[in-house]
Structures are given as structure tokens and as C-alpha cells.
């Protein structure tokens, strides 16, 4: 019956400590796939995505008591996911002591070693093109292209103006087009 409750009802149950675990489990089941793929497109490897996703939902559990219900739960979760992903990538960079250019190369290597990778297939080529983008631009492109997220919602997730996000997305598309045509 909980799976039919809307986000606000689930949050309310959680805060009242009524079937807290069940309410949270319902939230996880509702949003895990969207959150997972958003993370996965950034970190490439499944194990890394799983790691980040666990951090995301643990943070959500710890922060849900203070969640303001005027905002959308989905937006709030996405925000945590983006921050955790960028933090994770930053940590990877520091651990490896590699430059920004090398990060791109590292992600490309992860991509090419993925099961079923075929450079000739358009979807793999697109992924390679996306990995060339700067991190935040990559996030914007993924949210708009794959998640079809409105700019207004994206603005809440990324705490960036709609205008800046539009510009970022337009630049991202041009770069991807350039890559596709030249490779």
C-alpha cells in the first residue's frame, strides 16, 4: 500500500517514525534506477556507480528528517546524487594524482573496457563523445538528454540559473556533434 503513497506522504511517515524503514524502502525503489543511471553515465563502471549510489541513499536517510517538503523529493535526491558523483570523481583524481586531461583519458579507458563496447555503434560513440565534456557540462547534458529534465528543475538540482544551463547544454551538443563528425 505504501508504494501508492506520494512522495510527501512517504516523507511524512518517515518523519513521524511510522514504518520509517518501509517508507524509506519505498522511496529507494521508486528512484533507484533514475539515480543509478545518472551516476553510471558519469562514473562508467558499475561498481563505482553502486558505491556512489549507496552513499547517496545513506545521505538521504540521514537528511530526510530535515527535508523541506516545499521542494520535490526527486529534485533533492538528484542533487545529492550529483554532489556525491562529483565528489567521487574528485577523490578519484586526487588518489591517482592525475591531471584533468588524464581524467578524460581514464574515463575513456573505462568506457572501452566495458562489456559489449563497440566503437562503431552510435550509442558507444555518443558515450565516448560525452566523456570528452567537462564534468559539470556532462551532468547538464545527461540530465537534459537522457532524463529529459526541465531547465527549471535542473536549476534547483544544480543551483545554477536557467540561462547558464541552456548555454551549457547548447555548447555540450555542439562539442558532441563535432566529436561524432570527426571520429
Amino acid at each position, binding site marked *: 500500500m505504501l508504494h501508492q503513497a506520494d512522495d510527501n506522504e512517504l516523507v511524512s511517515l518517515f518523519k513521524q517514525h511510522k514504518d520509517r524503514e518501509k517508507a524509506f524502502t519505498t522511496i*529507494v525503489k521508486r528512484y533507484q534506477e533514475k539515480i543509478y543511471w545518472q551516476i553510471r553515465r558519469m562514473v562508467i563502471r558499475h561498481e563505482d556507480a553502486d558505491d556512489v549510489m549507496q552513499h547517496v541513499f545513506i545521505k538521504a536517510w540521514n537528511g530526510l528528517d530535515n527535508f523541506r517538503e516545499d521542494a520535490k523529493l526527486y529534485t533533492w535526491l538528484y542533487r545529492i546524487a550529483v554532489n556525491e558523483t562529483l565528489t567521487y570523481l574528485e577523490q578519484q583524481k586526487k588518489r591517482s594524482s592525475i591531471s584533468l586531461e588524464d581524467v578524460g583519458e581514464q574515463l575513456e579507458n573505462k568506457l572501452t573496457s*566495458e562489456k559489449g*563496447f563497440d566503437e562503431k555503434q552510435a*550509442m558507444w560513440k555518443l*558515450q565516448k563523445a560525452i566523456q570528452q565534456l567537462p564534468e559539470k557540462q556532462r551532468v547538464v547534458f545527461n540530465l537534459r*538528454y537522457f532524463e529529459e529534465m526541465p531547465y527549471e528543475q535542473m536549476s534547483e538540482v544544480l543551483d545554477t540559473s536557467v540561462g547558464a544551463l541552456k548555454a551549457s547544454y547548447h555548447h555540450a551538443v555542439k562539442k558532441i556533434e563535432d566529436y*561524432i563528425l570527426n571520429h
Partner: protein
Amino acid sequence: MAEDPTIKSELKELSATVANLNGDTPFSLPSSYFEGFPQRIMERIENETLTSKEVVLSPALEGLKSKNPFEVPENYFDEFSVKLPSNQPAVISINFRKWASFAAAACLAGFILGILFINNKKESPASLASNTISHEAMETYLTEVEAFELGDRDSELVAMENNTLMEVSTLNISEMLKDIPDKDISRFLDLNGFDETPTIN
């Protein structure tokens, strides 16, 4: 690939190439991953909750550390003194004969040490020499040596009989010695205790 008409048309305007791409995500993942994830995350949250409860207990104990419930009599530490045990060991007295022999030995040791000390105070030849050489002469000597060391190395400093130094180039020395027979040079070196081992100039 975007299904939303607004996003689709936006993409077509920006790039027909990208708009026509197959936008599926090609990554694979373990089967039943999403079925098992909620339970895994709840187990992890439960474990972390238990761990954090243990941490909450420690601060309480930490807070009690500085609180001491015991009382101490007033001025206890000001008046505190150590009472020594009554059964002190007996003082051993040394008889006069033994005391006198110790004193004599100490005097003799002192006399011998004194003699040795006085002997050591005798000045070394170097210090004696420094007492007879004037400060000005010493200063001149040291200045000449320092200047020589900073300058041209193709010469030697030769000590003269009047305690002055003369700088003589290696070439000049060779010139001066070329007319002197080798056996005379050898005899000179032997008389003055110099080693005949040739040096490379």
C-alpha cells in the same frame, strides 16, 4: 533519446547529427541488481545506525571523566608531610686510625694530581712561538697566505730566513733548480728530512 517534444525540437535545432543518434545507454549491469539494492541499503543503514549509537555512549562517559565525587579534608594537601619510619639504620662510626689513613691517601693523590696539572700547563712550542712573534708580523703573514690562496695557483709560497714569505712561480723554481745537480738536491732533501717522492706540478 529524448521523447519530450520540446527537448526533441531543441536538439534538432542545435544538431541534426546528435538528434538522429541512438540515444540508448549501452552499459550492462548485474541481473537483479535493482531487486536487491533496497535491502542492501537498509542493512547498511542499520549497521551504521548501531555504530553511531555506540559513539553516542562514549561522549557521556567522556563527560564524566572530569567529575570527581570524592571529598578531601580541608588543607589536606597544604599540611601533607611524609612520616618516616622509626627504625632508622644505625650510624656506622669509623675509628681514628682508618680516618687518618684515608686522609693521608687523599693528600698524596692531590699532590700527584697537582704535579701533573702544573706540568701540563707548560706552554707548547706553538704557543711559545706566538708569544715571541708580534701581532703585526702574524697579521702580515696570515694576509699573505689568504691572498695567495685566492689568487693564482701556479706559484708557491717560499719561507725566507727573515720570517717573511716570498711568492715564487713554479716556473721560477724550475729555472732556479735547473743548474743544480740532482745529487746535491737529493743530499739537501736528506739532510732536511724531506721525502724524495716526486710531486706532480
